């Protein structure tokens, strides 16, 4: 286990929103969708990246003095960070005394991840608590994921994989035996809209879901409700229709858009394409849930 490495950007303990009970969620880095609203922009690239929170910076210049690439420059009172020069060595992060510079993403061994997971092991037993592998897209690091899943099952820990499903199906067959629950994201059924919103076609995602339904133990469908992308009744009818004949769906969670990720985009020097969008209101979330429920699935609006 100490020879299998992967790239993650966070491990969150006492996680209550990614599956049942008390969980630890391991966030894998790297995703092959480009959803314009993505709540975790630091998860998109597979490589570690430097995040800069300029409001925390006291301009002491320690980062400048240690950067081997001269990627940081003083410009009057502010600092300019040339990301194209940065080799992500993380020295500036180590040197920063205010945590204004953070390394998003680190390469870790499966053993290190398991050590962190085992810290909360006593809390997992009741109510199917356990571990969720999320991201990013955890299935883009299949070997690392499988090693961790097997390690968890050896410790009798409930496992969940949070996926957008945009991978070859054999990646699923590899891990199904060690996965108690899939949290499967469905953005929208309309192919064109999906491509526009995420940069990817949804054919594989939908066919994988149908095939996974045959072999998985349990699936929870998660639908982010994004203004202008899928917040119409038609979209919800289509989702309900898609799910109505599936057998392993224990519930469908509708998750409202939020704009709390904006500062993260800024820290990574990325453009926030969802700027100005507002969260769908409680009533529409509830009415969407009842539309999806009308297809005989248990849909809940998380509000």
């Amino acid at each position, binding site marked *: 286990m100490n020879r299998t490495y992967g790239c993650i950007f966070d491990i969150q303990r006492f996680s209550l929103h990614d599956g049942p009970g008390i969980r630890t969620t391991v966030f894998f880095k790297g995703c092959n969708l480009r959803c314009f609203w993505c709540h975790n922009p630091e998860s998109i690239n597979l490589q570690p990246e430097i995040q800069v929170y300029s409001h925390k910076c006291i301009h002491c210049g320690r980062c400048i003095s240690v950067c081997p690439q001269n990627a940081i420059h003083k410009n009057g009172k502010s600092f300019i960070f040339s990301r194209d020069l940065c080799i992500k060595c993380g020295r500036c992060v180590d040197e920063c005394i205010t945590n204004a510079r953070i390394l998003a993403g680190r390469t870790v061994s499966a053993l290190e991840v398991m050590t962190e997971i085992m*810290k*909360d092991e*006593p*809390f997992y037993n009741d109510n199917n608590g356990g571990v969720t592998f999320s991201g990013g897209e955890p299935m883009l690091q299949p070997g690392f994921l499988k090693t961790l899943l097997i390690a968890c099952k050896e410790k009798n820990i409930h496992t969940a994989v949070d996926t957008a499903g945009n991978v070859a199906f054999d990646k699923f067959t590899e891990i199904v035996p060690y996965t108690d629950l899939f949290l499967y994201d469905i953005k929208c059924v309309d192919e064109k809209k999906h491509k526009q919103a995420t940069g990817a076609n949804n054919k594989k995602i939908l066919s994988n879901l149908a095939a996974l339904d045959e072999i998985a133990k349990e699936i929870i469908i998660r639908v982010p409700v994004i203004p202008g992308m899928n917040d119409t009744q038609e979209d919800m009818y289509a989702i309900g229709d898609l799910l109505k004949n599936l057998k392993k769906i224990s519930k469908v969670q509708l998750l409202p858009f939020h704009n709390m990720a904006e500062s993260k985009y800024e820290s990574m020097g990325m453009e926030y394409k969802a700027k100005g969008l507002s969260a769908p209101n409680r009533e529409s979330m509830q009415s969407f849930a009842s539309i999806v429920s009308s297809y005989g699935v248990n849909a809940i609006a998380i509000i």
Partner: protein
Amino acid sequence: MGNGSTMSDRLEALLSAKRVQTEMKIAKYGRTLDLDDRGNLIAPDDFIFTPVSNHISNGFFGPYACGMNYRKLLHEHPVTVDPNAGLLGSWMVMLIDYKKPLWNPDICFEHLHKEQKMYDIVHGIGGVQHFLADYSLGLQLGFNGIKEKIAFYGKDCDSSKKEFYQGLNECIEGIYDYITRHIKKARELAKETDNKYISDNLNKLAAMNEELLKRPAETFHEAVQWMTWFLITGDMYNGGASAVGDIDRILKPYYENDLKKGILTDEQAIFYICNFLIIDNAYCQIGGCDEFGNDNTNKLSHLVLEAVHRMKIPASVCVRVHENIDKDFYYNAVKYLLTDRTGSPNFIGDKAMTEGFMKNGYSRKLAVSRVKCGCHWCAIPGKEYTLNDIVKINFVAVFDTAFKDMMSSRQEPSVSYLWDTFIKHLNRSIHVTAEGMDFQIEHMHEVFPELLMDLVCEGPIEKGLDASNGGLEYINLCVDGAGLAVVADSFAALEKRIERNKQITWDQIDKALKSNYKGYEDIQLMMKNSDHYGNGGTVADTYAEKIVKEFVAAVKKEPTPNGYNMIPGLFSWANTIPMGKAVGATPNGRYAYSPISHGANPLPGFKDNGALTACANAVASVQCGYGNTVPIQLEINPVTLKGEDGIHTMMTFISVYLNKMGGTLMNINIMDKEKILDAHKDPSKYPDLIVRVTGFCAYFALLSEDFRKLVVDRMINE
């Protein structure tokens, strides 16, 4: 005033009278009452009590002077009767507040002063109560039985003990007088009113209390009334009987007997319990198990919980959790914690408390009988003298002493040298603390004996010895440490910044600390942004565990010089503010004189996310393990734990922490962040808002700004 027709109307009237009292307290004391609301009423402005002095200092000392002044106070103390009440009993002031000076200046402990100050030791000399009377024994004897017992043992006693019995006798006479005056007042009010229901109620209460002066309680109603009298008269002496202990066990025989006879309904029982808790906010334990692990939960456990839930006033009821706890009872306890948002109940773990106490050489049977009865502590009813929660060592002051000691020595400074110096001073501080406690046991009885508690304990009346002076069978003295996180984080920051990263020198940090980081803001940030105890597996966590290991070993190494057993724990109570004021800046980036960390908790903001389980792991890893608590204090935003899922998550969280991880006590606030911030700005907008400050809950609006800030700063965002 309610119309007196139903119990719920009457309860509502009692609660609204309490609300008026709270508003008056806010008006009268401003926002300075940094204590729990005990339920006492405000004394009228014209009430003046002048004690009789027997000493040149104008103070009064010794059993007779204390008993006599207590009797005088009870005789002069105003008496009020609420026509809606289901119980008689009211109280306003305590004798201890008129005891000035508190300590007899002839009995000097100057030889301890210097080191007590250096280590900022809360020494407990002059500390009162903080152990537990045996209410079952009291109920069995009744006031008449206590009176006879004093007469019996005092009759032919040794002349050296005469004064002690005189003191006890003054107390019991004072109590008779006080109850009689309430009876008289009730009869008068009954005569004055046109409302037949009220006059019947008052006459009934008067008649019941006349009986209670002649014989022990027989019914549930009488038993609760007797407990009320002992509780408030104890409080009026020295705050003494503010604890009851396992109320559901104590009252069970009366409850069951009345049910059998058909003279009591559950609604009546809840009503009486409500009355009792309104009159005095007693520390109670409910639930728990027997020595064989069988669940002790009974119908009364549910009813006490229900009473607290209905009233939503500051309460001090604690649920004792164990593997076989009644699931419905436990579910309701957690549900009320999450939905009522009054900080109640809190939860104590039977496993660690019982098994820990047994390590002092006691049987399991005795250990399970040691019940929760104070902010963070347990005691064996009527048998154990403890000084719980009134003896504390400020670890931060010990660290500060060690740091200065090292910097002024000729030896090259290093973290390992600092560690050795810290351990040397820690050991010394424990020794000084032990000497102080011996001094207390030697002399407290000459200054302010525990006369009220003595009435209802095993031993004092029989032996003619005060509880503080060996009257009780067991003496297990509390030694708590405080400020763990500040010290652990300081060690970790020094190790990282000076020795590992070589970013600063000892000389620089010394200057930075001396100047309170003024001009050294960079260094402060650097030190602040080092490892924090609580994240698990960090250098700071290792230091925290090492400090506690050394502390426990030092406390358990030997008894006090006079041979009394000491039990280690970690708790700061609300002393975080004064203890902070005693110490200058620390290497974890803390400013001089600012509060130290709370109990064994990591510093607020120690972790960005997942702080709840991380905090639980951390505090579980620093348990002292001898049956005194190391509480965990948690502030949780209600959005984290919503609905049924939230209740089940919390049930898991609490039971895992207490049943499996060795946790002892959990104090939990469910606080809406926006509401608490708004209330902090303008407390008067939220007169009903209750928060758990530490081992006690209080009206937020009654707290000083410093105290409110302490609670606000602790908020953990999940």
